[in-house]
């Protein structure tokens, strides 16, 4: 197996609120191979955005990274100084924002918003070269070169998101994080933008972490899918197996809830409410909603374990250890 470009190990992020710490990311670990496309799904509030921001070290008050490691090419990002981290952003670890509508500075031309990326990272191409590179980047995301001279309000939502992708790949990063990059766009434009993202990702051989809700989009885009629940990664597996043979009961319900055209039936949601991250349930956080819960579930929190080659799941139903261990 190739060495992973990004390793996340036992990451914990809390929001320190007056009512106590909200454990938004609660011990997440995974590896990301170079050029891999990892999809992250999970219901609203499961901590996907919080984790994505933690990887970029862009969390704001009251969020705090309470523990864990984020190794990019073996270097722990959480141990770097703020200035060292600043240099890594966009250069090696970049991001496509969610809100395409106002992710660009309204008073600056696209060209200037791209030039400043080069400048901030100590690349000072001369004027002609800069022009050429910006033009080339825009063409690669399917835009005309003269878009560089426009202001954001003169572009459509899809065009703005393409500009954001062009910026995200400007310095040829190793990892691109995209948190619901198309949720503000209509379906047709969504597909086009995702295709663009996929194409440039392949060119660069950059790894992508795509956060989203749209299982259809995920199925088309991702190589592997990680399922988050209550701040934890509960299942991680190649995309085909997630859809054909999900192992975690939550994943199974998630897949079952996808409406299909062939079969018209009553829309099936997942019963029960999302758990409080302030006082998460004891044991497995999913046990109150889990139809298959049994003896160990309310007390012991299952660890993420490899069940088959490349398949990881955090569930007592699939765990060997719990049958032997009485305490975890």
């Amino acid at each position, binding site marked *: 197996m190739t060495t992973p470009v990004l390793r996340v190990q036992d990451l914990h992020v809390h929001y320190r609120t007056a009512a106590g710490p909200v454990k938004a990311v609660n011990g997440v670990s995974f590896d990301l191979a170079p050029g891999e496309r990892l999809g992250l799904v999970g219901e609203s509030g499961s901590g996907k955005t919080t984790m994505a921001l933690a990887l*970029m070290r*862009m969390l*704001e*008050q009251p969020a705090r990274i309470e523990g864990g490691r984020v190794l990019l090419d073996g270097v722990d990002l959480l141990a770097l100084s703020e200035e060292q981290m*600043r*240099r*890594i*952003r*966009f*250069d090696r670890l*970049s*991001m496509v*924002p*969610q*809100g395409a*509508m*106002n*992710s*660009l*500075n*309204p*008073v*600056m031309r696209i060209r200037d918003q791209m030039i*400043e*990326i080069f400048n*901030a*990272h100590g690349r000072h191409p001369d004027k002609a070269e800069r022009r050429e590179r910006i033009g080339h980047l825009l063409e690669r995301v399917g835009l005309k070169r003269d878009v560089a001279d426009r*202001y954001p*309000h003169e572009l459509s939502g899809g065009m703005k998101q393409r500009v*954001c992708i062009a*910026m995200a790949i400007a310095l040829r990063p190793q990892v691109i994080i995209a948190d619901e990059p198309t949720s503000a766009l209509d379906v047709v434009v969504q597909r086009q933008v995702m295709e663009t993202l996929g194409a440039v990702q392949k060119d660069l051989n950059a790894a992508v972490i795509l956060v989203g809700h749209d299982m259809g989009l995920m199925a088309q885009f991702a190589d592997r899918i990680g399922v988050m629940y209550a701040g934890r990664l509960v299942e991680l597996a190649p995309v085909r197996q997630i859809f054909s043979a999900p192992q975690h009961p939550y994943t199974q319900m998630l897949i079952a809830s996808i409406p299909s055209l062939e079969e018209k039936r009553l829309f099936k949601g997942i019963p029960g409410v999302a758990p409080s991250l302030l006082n998460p349930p004891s044991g497995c956080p999913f046990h109150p909603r889990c139809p298959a819960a049994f003896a160990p579930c309310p007390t012991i929190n299952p660890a993420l374990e490899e069940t088959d080659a490349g398949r990881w799941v955090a569930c007592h139903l699939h765990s060997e250890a719990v049958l032997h261990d009485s305490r975890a």
Partner: protein
Amino acid sequence: MSFQYLVRRTGTFLLVIVLAVSVNFLIPRLIPGDPIEDRLTQLSATSSGGASIDIAATAAAYRERFGLDKSLVEQYLNYWWDILHLDFGYSLANYPETVGASISAALPWTLGLVGTSTLIAFVIGSLLGGLLAWPRVPRALRGFIPLLMVISAIPYFLLGIILIYVLVIVARAFPAGGAYTFGSTLRFDLNGIADVLRHATLPAASIILAGIGSWALSMRGMMISVLGEDFIKLAHAKGLKQRRIFLWYGMRNSLLPQLTSLALVLGYVVSGSILVEVIFSYPGIGYKLYQAIQSKDYFVVQGIVLILVVSIGFALYVMDLIYPLIDPRIRYQQA
């Protein structure tokens, strides 16, 4: 900037001027009674000598002299003619000084004092407000916020009185009033300039101190909402330096509404800062206006009001023309 935009804004500005001049012309003429006959009756009643004058004949003579015997339309056209030649008539209180001369003697002092102080207050206040909203600023600076609120709540004239008490009466560090040492002639050498600056310091300080607070508070509010925008997050993700994000993303966007307020305030500058000028007996427009109102010098009041309206209109006009250059989104807006 589109030609249409320019034409429309210029049209609006000219319309404001025409309306202001017309209102200025009409209002005194709407007052019932004949001002000349009234004045003459008043004069003859108070004059101790028994020499009675033929009021009707004298009034007719004066009316002819002031052009008041002509039709309203003719008077109106004449009024425009005079205005276009910057002729606002005579000061009643200081006859035969003209209103024009009276105002132009006061205007430079006001522009220098109030204009400069307003700009200084704007720059310092906006910068401070921006910094106060910036999360990575030393906590000590945050302590300023309540202080600013208090200062901006103190009326500037009260601040002036406090400054006079502390620095003039107690410390004797500054002159109490005037624009330059009384009795000396105004000279453009080093001593002369130093003298003018020394006289301007306290009134300027009271205007600046009072202004900083409100500029800072409104800027801070704007900055906080701008810093919550998505483009600020992306700016951080891009790995831009803090200073660049602060200036080009935060300040640049927060300043837009501030500039509109600044244009308005600058328009008001020509009316001077009445209370400050009065407290420091500073020979600017504000002081002049105060005196004119006291002595019922209508023509001077009228002249100042007219200039005020025109300059506010002009400031907003200039702002409208500049705004598309600083906010590209305005360019195509049809308003």
